[in-house]
């Protein structure tokens, strides 16, 4: 949480409203993330946690404040967005694999078209990532032929093919059957040893306790509290966090 080096991601007084209905979804967000830090973001639904991480690769724009990602200020400048997206990988709740392309084609799409890597090299590198998420034998299948857990691991491999500095996970296990959650979490735990900065919106508190350096709790568009997992789970500082934890850990 505390780092004297320049943060890799910095939110300074960020405010965001949804253009469609004027809802104030992020309110005065000030956050810093150090290079290599693993952070879990939790909070009730509608608290703005997904929107927060979606701002980091410019899937959402914000109206006030500054958001700096690896030295690039995200704003209206499209060039900055391209630069940032090359360095940020993202994994979605609904996987968002391309169903008309095979697993391998999904993986090499960005390396060949964006990074202009030769196809052969892209395939070799993709294979390494597929082995890492233990799905190499399905390289030539289509996504919908795989189970949810396998699809999510493919999605992780696809994001890793960009060799990102930052990985964003937006509720990666929320759409999975209970039996498949573990295989995805195992892959994510393995990734934490790679030195990448990882931001993960999740309610998997076991995962948070095991690997997170810090837990951020959000409600109503605000960062309510942030602390190392042990401290957050054992002695939450606010009544809102206490209430939230009692609900999700109650059973």
């Amino acid at each position, binding site marked *: 949480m505390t780092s004297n080096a320049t943060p890799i991601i910095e939110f300074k007084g960020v405010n965001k409203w949804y253009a469609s209905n004027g809802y104030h979804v992020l309110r005065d967000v000030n956050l810093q993330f150090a290079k290599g830090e693993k952070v879990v973001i939790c909070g009730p639904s509608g608290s703005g946690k997904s929107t927060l991480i979606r701002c980091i*690769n*410019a*899937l959402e724009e914000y109206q006030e404040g500054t958001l700096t990602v690896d030295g690039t200020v995200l704003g209206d400048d499209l060039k900055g967005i*391209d630069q940032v*997206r*090359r360095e*940020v*990988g*993202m994994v*979605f709740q*609904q996987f*968002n*694999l*391309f*169903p*008309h392309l095979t697993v391998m084609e999904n993986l090499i*799409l*960005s390396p060949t*078209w*964006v990074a202009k890597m030769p196809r052969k090299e892209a395939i070799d590198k993709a294979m390494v990532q597929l082995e890492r998420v233990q799905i190499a034998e399905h390289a030539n299948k*289509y996504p*919908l*032929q795989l189970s949810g857990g396998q699809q999510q691991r493919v999605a992780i491999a*696809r*994001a890793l093919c*960009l060799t990102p500095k930052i990985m964003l996970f937006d509720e990666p296990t929320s759409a999975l059957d209970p039996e498949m959650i573990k295989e995805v979490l195992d892959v994510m735990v393995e990734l934490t040893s790679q030195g990448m900065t990882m931001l993960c919106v999740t309610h998997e508190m076991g995962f948070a306790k095991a690997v997170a350096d810090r837990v951020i709790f959000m409600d109503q568009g605000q960062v309510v509290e942030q602390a190392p997992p042990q401290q957050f789970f054992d002695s939450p500082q606010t009544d809102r966090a206490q209430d939230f934890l009692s609900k999700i850990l109650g059973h």
Partner: protein
Amino acid sequence: MHVFKSIEARPMPGQSASPLAWLRVNLFSSTSNSVMTLLLLALGIWTLVSSMDWALVHAVFGANLQACNEARGVGACWGVITEKGRLIVMGRYPEAEHWRPIIATAIMLGVVVISCMPRFWNKALPLVWALMLVVYFILMKGGWMGLTAVDTDQWGGFPLTVMLTVISMTLAFPLAIFVALGRRSNMPAIKALCTLYVELIRGVPLITVLFMASFMLPLFMPEGVKIDVLVRVVVGITLFSAAYMAEVIRGGLQALPKGQTEAAATLGLTYWQTQRMIVLPQALATVVPSIMNTFIGLFKDTSLVTIVSLYELTGALGLALNSDADWRPFKIEAYLFITFIYFAFCFAMSRYSLWIEERTAVSKVR
């Protein structure tokens, strides 16, 4: 601890019945059902026999006007096709040069058939098309390499139907894609322009568009500038079908989950890369049946160009019979003849649509 043992799967009961059993269950399950089945069977046989009677048994096949007149009412006069078939199929194209539209149309249809096969979808295909069009127009128009010149207003019959359909389709499809994308664009000017175009075209009948293209457009042209009637008609049909197709394609775009473009964005793909590789392949696959609907409609709508004095298949039929009092009574046989031609092509298009639909679906799931 008990060990879990799974129960062997077995086939659903009652699925392997004999044809006789199938008949009993589906057609003769009750008295009223049996009566209905027999009645419909009788009606079917009666219709078949009497139409065969008319179409074959009492029919006249030679171009014999007297025999035809005698058979009127009881038998078909296919002689009208022997007599007028050539004029119906070829329209006003000079008779001595009929070999030219035949070859040109065969080449055009050949290239279309090739283009329908996904294995030929490569970079050479546009080149093949360009070459085909050059050969086609040299053959049809002539006035070069010793070929007699034939003015475009002389073109007619089935070759004209094919040419109008093929060229309009080829132009309308990409135009429709751009208009559909434009209507979903973030840029207000482009969005407004595309919406205006679609609404404007959908607000008028094709016959009006053709009429305007043919008679009004030249009035707005500067002195001395003359656009060929065929070009004007092709532009009219293209603009018309593209508006409808654009809405169909927009439906397909709308159906695609937002996550697909978001994933493409996070991978760093540009707008056009995303559309070409992620959005369109999926969106178009979902609207194949409706696109084919528009294509089939376009094929049949070409018959409206008669309004501007171009005699394609249907127009040529009128041309062949309206001025000939002797053969005019046998119009119905002639219409059956072109019905068969239209049906053959429309049926082929709809079978192709089913096939390509299945093929794109397979790549998603299996």
